[in-house]
């Protein structure tokens, strides 16, 4: 399950946020503290995650203290998913 989430997230981040579709992202690679994603993109990412995975995320939840890499974000989504 997590692999699906990871690949969807990777595609969104490399294509829509980083504008480098050929880029790969290691699931343990730092995303926020490294500057790959900045605070303006967090809202986008939150909206995308809500629409894509059918989970509800409050605005205070997605930030550098809840995740910094794809593994952490995928786990967060997994825990939120119904059923």
């Amino acid at each position, binding site marked *: 399950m997590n692999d699906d989430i990871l690949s969807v997230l990777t595609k969104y981040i490399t294509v829509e946020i980083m*504008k480098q579709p050929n*880029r790969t992202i290691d699931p343990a690679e730092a995303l*926020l*503290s*490294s*500057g*790959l*994603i*900045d*605070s*303006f993109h*967090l*809202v*986008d990412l939150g*909206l995308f995650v809500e629409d894509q995975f059918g989970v509800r995320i409050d*605005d*205070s939840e*997605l*930030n*550098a203290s809840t995740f910094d890499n794809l593994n952490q974000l995928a786990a967060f989504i997994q825990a939120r998913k119904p059923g």
Partner: protein
Amino acid sequence: MPTFSDILKEHYEKTPERTCVTILQPGKPDLPITYRELFRGAAGYIKTYTENGVVPGDVVTLILQHGVDVLYAHFGALLHGAIPSIMPFLTEKLLPEKYRAELAALVEVTTPTAIITYPEFEAEVRAALKPGEDSVKNVIVTDRVHGPMDPDMTSFGGFQRKPEDIAILQHSSGTTGLQKGVALSHQAILNHLNNYAQAIHLTPEDVIVSWLPLYHDMGLIACWLLPILMGNHLVLMSPFDWVRAPYRLFQAVSKFRGTLSWLPNFAYNFCAQKVRDRDMEGVDLSSWRAITNTAEPIKWESHQAFYERFKPYGFRYEALVTSYGMAENVFAIVQGGIDEPVIYEDIDRDSLQTRKIARLAEPGQASIRMVGTGKTIPNSHIRIVDSKGHDLPDRHVGEVALKSDCMLTGYYHRPDLTAKVFIGDWYLTGDYGYTVDEVLYITGRKKDLIIVGGKNIYPQDLELLAYEVAGVHPGRASAFGIYNESTGTEDVVMVAEVDCDDALERQKIADDIRATVTRGSAVALRYVHLVKAPWLVKTSSGKTARSANREKFLKEMQDKGQVY
């Protein structure tokens, strides 16, 4: 001519129970502060300042986020006769050692007597200081400040300040920006507030809603000093809360019947794209009479997107208004959209770019839509001048020169920088523009400056960071901004010449540049473009010619079919 203290005292005596600021805190009840509470809180700070050896005329540096502490600390400093300067807060992106270096540089040039911060940030601040060597006598921590107390105004040093004395310092961030502390006198600021209040037809009923940071003129003047000194209710939320949940701005306007806001252009796109319907239920924006777009280039498309998105909630098109200004003039120079509708026109692109003349485009011609920033506010005057300082007629592009009764006293402790920007009593803004029937249009910048989301970024600071990366040689990187239509602001591009051919190694260098620049400046690079030498265009003195590199980059991208 009064000073800030005289004006504040009048509010305290005449309307002590009037709410001057309501602080919004997510997850907690709103916090209204009356003028009485403002004075009592400030009095606690004044006692603390006195005990810590801060005397009138001293600079105090505030490293505080939006909240009651910064309110009491800032107005306490003003009423004490000290000169407050607000330093941006450390974000998670910025490396602590870079922040320390910036703070040390700020201390060196502005020589504050004290720094005020939170207990959890004290160690970070102390790490930047050199006890016994620098000017700082004490780091004042908010939990050790005297609580609110009855003010004894006879002891407030602020009442002895003269109108021409410096009231506040204002810095932009980054190594270069911190060197230029804009020193503004009581008189300059009060002249500006009076002129600007006329330009926007400010009435006591106006309610200002803001999330803007206080280390930028738009936030510090329009959405802090203006309402609190003029007696208008200010509804304040933190920029960190807004960027996470932009809908809060709309809920706040609806709840408090907000009438005025100021926003940089990117915020129009950001709000139009990122606010969900579910967060807009019951929101009524009909009270909003003017949102002023300023601090970065104004785009017609951004206004349209904002209007289309918020029209169903009672938002009025006439509320989208414009301005152009800078800290050196306290804040605004022109204002548009209040007395007459905002004006825009389609300009012949070739004529503008090659002949520097803003000719109206014929049908079918490639054109650029320009939005007028407005007409000068009372007591500010502009000229458009060529490189020799001669006046240019309407529709001819030149540098915008400015004269007013609200100019800066100077860059604090930097007379060398001050001397560079004046020709006689005219201040050269470093921005290019043209006028048509007194309306000012801004076309570009003479100075190499990138503006992202209203924040000024000096490319040389970013290039210095890139040179720290193994594989990048000093002098062989160039940073510049490119307008992004979707976000409504500039993307930052870094082009660097590297020698190696290995794809993996190049990817690593690109990642390192990204990480080093972000961690060193809190600026996220959108594109890192690695090239083979010789690619970069240099000036005759060997410096990178950023605008030429920008053109070259754009052309390469266009040839590859990627158009920005």
